[in-house]
């Protein structure tokens, strides 16, 4: 059947459906591979299964049969097994063993395909790039229904689309269902074997068996997906959603859900971007590109591990340190009865902008005020400053007691550490130093106040 016989809606619907189903299945399995730090394995399995496919096609003469899965799974497991044996019995490291085995098997597959299967509809181009656009064009009718004329045109098109299913879809759906059942059934065992395989073995779980089951499923999903998206893009579908999810989630269940969501978004957005109305390009490639973009977004904006979040956290810390330094300077100025108009905090690498921002913040908090005699601490400010100066002088006392340092070397290290000494640590220090009243310079160590300053310490 030609491409033109299908409406745009039909093509779009089934392409996206295929993309979602493949993507989610791969993403779920990918999570376990990424957690086991075995991302390379799906690369290997995806390539190593090619001779399996070639042999099955050679024997049965068709591409869309259940036996194809069996062939792929056998050779997928064989890849993992051979690699493991090679590294155990040969003098080859684990990663090179994997590299040797899968490239060799893939080469055998290419040889078989090019020598015996030139006449069959499985060209190397399809293997590499996939033919996403053609998946929805080979269809079968699910139900032979009469669509009543009274239905609206939209509804009629929807029904017509739903009953005319691409031939590849049921196998892909099967792969997804088997994957979900596998993950649900072996949830606890997969988690344990991925986190601590030795404990799993010590408890009597056959971690090895579970591993090969996982590999077999990876092979099955690869074969389900590779006709559509090609052998290279399948890799992206395994690894990238899982890696993205790892940035976003810190529990197993959310991680799997995130991975599935990332895969679905990539299928929808990727198909749209690859459509004739936008870039008119290879759909599989575009899906993988969108996956990459999603990962990049996660790297930049993930709430805990993202670059932006880290920058914000760092800036907050800098601002807190600047504020505390200002309070300490004002406290000492009050002790020495000197006047403060400007702050220079070169030691801490604080820019003038940061100092200005810290001043604004402290003013708004009511910790400092500017009067006729320069900057002054308010009562709340004085209380905060006291805790800080206490931390500073306690640390100086600690250094003086335990380190061979000249007196003029104590101030700088104490200025660095003082911001991180909360009430609990101050208490421990004071106890260890037998509640000192003076620091090594002879300055008064302020007594404990109700701790407030460090309640928001972010470490």
């Amino acid at each position, binding site marked *: 059947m030609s491409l033109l016989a299908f409406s745009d809606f039909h093509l779009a619907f089934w392409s996206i459906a295929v993309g979602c189903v493949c993507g989610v299945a791969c993403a779920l399995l990918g999570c376990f591979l990424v957690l086991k730090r075995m991302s390379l394995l799906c690369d290997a399995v995806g390539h190593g299964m090619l001779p399996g496919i070639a042999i099955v096609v050679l024997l049965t003469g068709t591409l869309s049969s259940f036996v194809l899965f069996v062939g792929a799974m056998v050779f997928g497991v064989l890849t993992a097994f051979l690699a493991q044996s090679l590294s155990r019995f040969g003098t080859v490291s684990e990663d090179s063993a994997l590299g040797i085995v899968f490239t060799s098997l893939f080469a055998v597959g290419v040889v078989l395909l090019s020598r015996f299967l030139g006449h069959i509809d499985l060209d190397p181009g399809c293997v590499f790039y996939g033919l996403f656009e053609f998946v929805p064009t080979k269809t079968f009718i699910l139900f032979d229904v009469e669509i009543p004329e009274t239905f609206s045109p939209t509804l009629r098109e929807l029904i017509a689309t739903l009953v005319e299913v691409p031939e590849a879809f049921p196998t892909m759906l099967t792969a997804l269902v088997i994957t979900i059942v596998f993950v649900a059934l072996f949830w606890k*065992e997969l988690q344990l074997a991925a986190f*601590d395989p030795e*404990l799993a073995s*010590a408890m009597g779980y056959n971690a090895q068996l579970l591993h090969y089951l996982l590999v077999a499923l990876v092979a099955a999903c690869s074969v389900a997906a590779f006709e559509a998206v090609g052998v290279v893009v399948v890799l992206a579908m395994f690894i990238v959603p899982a890696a993205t999810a790892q940035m976003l989630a810190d*529990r197993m269940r959310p991680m799997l859900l995130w991975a599935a969501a990332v895969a679905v978004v990539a299928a929808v957005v990727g198909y749209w971007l690859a459509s004739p109305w936008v870039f008119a390009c290879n759909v599989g490639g575009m899906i993988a590109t969108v996956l990459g973009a999603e990962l990049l977004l996660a790297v930049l904006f993930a709430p805990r591990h993202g670059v932006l979040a880290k920058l914000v956290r760092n800036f907050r810390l800098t601002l807190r340190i600047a504020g505390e330094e200002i309070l300490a300077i004002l406290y000492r100025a009050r002790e020495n009865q000197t006047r403060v108009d400007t702050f220079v905090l070169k030691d801490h690498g604080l820019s003038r902008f940061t100092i200005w921002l810290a001043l604004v913040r402290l003013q708004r908090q009511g910790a400092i005020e500017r009067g006729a005699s320069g900057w002054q601490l308010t009562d709340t400010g004085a209380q905060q400053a006291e805790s800080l100066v206490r931390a500073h002088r306690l640390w100086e006392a600690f250094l003086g007691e335990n380190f061979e340092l000249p007196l003029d070397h104590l101030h700088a290290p104490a200025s660095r550490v003082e911001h991180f000494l909360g009430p609990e640590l101050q208490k421990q220090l004071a106890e260890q130093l037998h509640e000192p009243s003076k620091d090594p310079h002879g300055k008064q160590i302020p007594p404990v106040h109700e701790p407030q300053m460090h309640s928001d310490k972010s470490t």
Partner: protein
Amino acid sequence: MPILDVHDVTVAYHRKPVLWDVDWTLDEPRLVGIVGPNGAGKSTLIKAMLGLVPLVSGTVNVFDQPVANVRRRIGYVPQRESVDWDFPVSVLDVALMGTYGSLGWFRRPGAKQRALAEKCLEMVGIRDLEQQQIGQLSGGQQQRTFLARALAQQADVYFMDEPFAGVDAATEQAIFQILRHLRQQGKTIVVVHHDLRTVPRYFDHLILLNVRLVASGPTATVFTDENLRKTYGGRLSILETVGAAVQAQERTP
């Protein structure tokens, strides 16, 4: 009936023996320390007892049975560095893993297992951290998590690989108290240990190991200067030579 019976065990990695003919029996519940220099085969010995590494020769029996038959009575604390602490699980999830051995395939932990895991976290003093992701913990807290997981295994024999490594003083004390508590309940605990100063205080039975068993028995009689000199005073060079010869021979058949 001996609790642990290690009979003439030899273990090899890549055919080179790393543990030679270890023969050791424990008849009564004890808090056992395994002590020896780096590369002495301490971890290998407990892995051999757990059935995690293949034996070149010899047998291991636990309660007079092969290890595979009594796995539910055995608890294990691997080295802290052996797992990925960025793994997306909470402290409670890890403690729950201790109950997996008694559940068997397919069964999920339920309310009973959860209560047990929480009780074990309580015992090691980190109940309040149960919802934290394990990567946010300090080294001592991670070790306590592992210990809670082992307690949740409710075993009769425990194997622990360097549970005191890299923990703060408070955690070291807490762990020791729990080990002693287990010991008082009649359990046997076999601990790989590296700090000689604490050996006489912690353990009532000792294995001195350096590729071979140098000495074993009650700490009071075994922990002597002469035995320590034998353990730490270098390998028996003849063993190294024979090991290399075995490896070379088998590589070229």
